[in-house]
């Protein structure tokens, strides 16, 4: 073989390598997508019964100490289809109350298992922002992702413990159905087309979680009596924990304060 033939063979090999990697990655992605729904709680696993007559409730208010940071304005000018509220939701504090704090029972439930809710939870892309900004789901719970904008979004979770994926969703496209198999707190989700679009998904194994509203309030119902660690997690301000003891039919108020960093 002369040099020209060798050169041609080398180029074909390189091209082949590129195509092989490209195709195999797509296949892997499809395989993983196929297995994703089965990562829900296995059918053989049964939930631990809780006596409804003894369950307790924990509620409270999450406060923000110090001067609330001035909301940052988002520049949406790079896409004419993006209109609406263009304020960042990194720290939403009003009258000393902090919104978007994920509150959950971090410890104390032992090896109890819980059924995954059959109902989907929803992430809505509207006015080029995610709604809600912070979401709580159970492992394996279905998440319906909708695009209500007249522009294409891409949904790109960047997890530490779950599988990463990145899919685009054109306007009026069918909702995407996704779930996360492993527990993960403050799992970032972003849109690479609109870099200001960020939200956080919190994946836990129990249904005992809540997210504070604009008034900083939260409520977790149906907890069996016991000693628990309650975690309050904010995307920027970090995590704070509290130990609590709940008696049967208790209704306890547990407030938590965050300070400006």
């Amino acid at each position, binding site marked *: 073989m002369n040099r020209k033939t060798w050169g041609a063979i080398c*180029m074909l090999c390189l091209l082949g390598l*590129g195509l092989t990697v*490209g195709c195999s*990655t797509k296949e892997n992605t499809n395989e993983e997508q196929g297995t994703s729904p089965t990562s829900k709680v296995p059918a053989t696993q049964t939930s631990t019964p809780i006596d409804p007559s003894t369950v307790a409730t924990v509620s409270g208010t999450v406060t923000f100490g110090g001067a609330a940071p001035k909301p940052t304005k988002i520049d949406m000018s790079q896409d004419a289809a993006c209109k609406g509220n263009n304020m960042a939701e990194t720290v939403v504090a009003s009258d000393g109350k902090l919104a978007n704090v994920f509150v959950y029972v971090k410890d104390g439930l032992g090896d109890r298992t819980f059924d995954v809710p059959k109902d989907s939870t929803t992430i809505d892309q509207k006015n080029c922002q995610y709604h809600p900004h912070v979401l709580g789901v159970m492992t394996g719970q279905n998440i319906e992702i909708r695009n209500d904008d007249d522009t294409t979004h891409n949904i*790109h979770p960047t997890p530490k413990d779950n599988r990463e994926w*990145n899919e685009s969703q054109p306007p009026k496209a069918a909702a995407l159905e996704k779930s996360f198999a492993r527990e993960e707190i403050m799992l970032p989700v972003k849109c690479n*087309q*609109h870099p200001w679009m960020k939200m956080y998904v919190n994946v836990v194994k129990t249904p005992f979680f809540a997210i504070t509203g604009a008034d900083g309030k939260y409520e977790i119902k149906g907890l069996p009596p016991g000693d628990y660690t309650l975690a309050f997690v904010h995307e920027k301000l970090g995590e704070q924990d509290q130990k609590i003891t709940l008696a049967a039919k208790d209704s306890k108020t547990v407030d938590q304060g965050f300070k400006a960093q």
Partner: protein
Amino acid sequence: MLTACATFVLLIAGALVTSNDAGLSVPDWPTSFGSLYKIPQLVGGVKFEHTHRMVAQFVGILTIIMAVWTWRSDRRRWIRYLALGALCTVIAQGILGGLTVLFYLPPAISSAHAALAQTFFCIAVAIAVFTGRRWLEKIPAAEIDSRRPSLTTLGLLSICVLYIQLIAGAMFRHHGLSWWPHVLNAPIVAIVLTWTAIRALLHYAQIEAIRRPAVIMLSLLIAQLCLGFVAFMTRVAWGHDAVQPELPMVISTVAHVAVGALLLATTVVFSIQVRRHVPGSAAKPLRTEDRATVAARAPVSS
């Protein structure tokens, strides 16, 4: 020259993708939203990512033309292989670009993509130099350099420290490394490049082919240090909490990448010219008859 210029534009387009965090706005590769030829609506991050892909395709085509042209028209075997090397590099670069999309921007692959981009730019610039009229028509000065370290060594050392700087910078930009290795290496780069350029200007200023890149090296170095400072302030000091890529950060980081690429390419050109005009004392200077035949060894056409 056209390939080198187009590659510079491509480098800027690539830097814009990274600075605007738009690397995954087109989620598939080698297709874009499932198509190989359709141009998607160029809004948001797609504007940067797809433009980068289109410029890359153009550079790929130019490189193929350049490689075929060089192979057919240039008598010098080594430049034919260099052109073939350029073609292989641009293919590898395309594959790396695809892999980084398919694997969601892993720092190692993205940084390799960034580093190989500037390597390809240097190859394209070198080919432009080797096929340029000045190279073909001008007789090498063949000055003897008996100083230690030799100017050739200093030129190579400059390329090495710049390359380390490039990799550290790329790793930082692609979240694989903290900012401090890049910042820490900056004074080393400044010292080595200044030493090299000053040595060249002090002793070989009469050789235009060396004086010119040495002056450009110094000018670009000063510009690059200033841009590096501004990029650090806009990205690390002021911009770490930004809700989206802000214009001052985008402009300063893209300019820092572009000037960095120009500095590396200029240093490569400088080293090539030093090797040609000021061979080390160990290297055999060109004999008079060799000098006379330089022009005769030139290609059929460039």
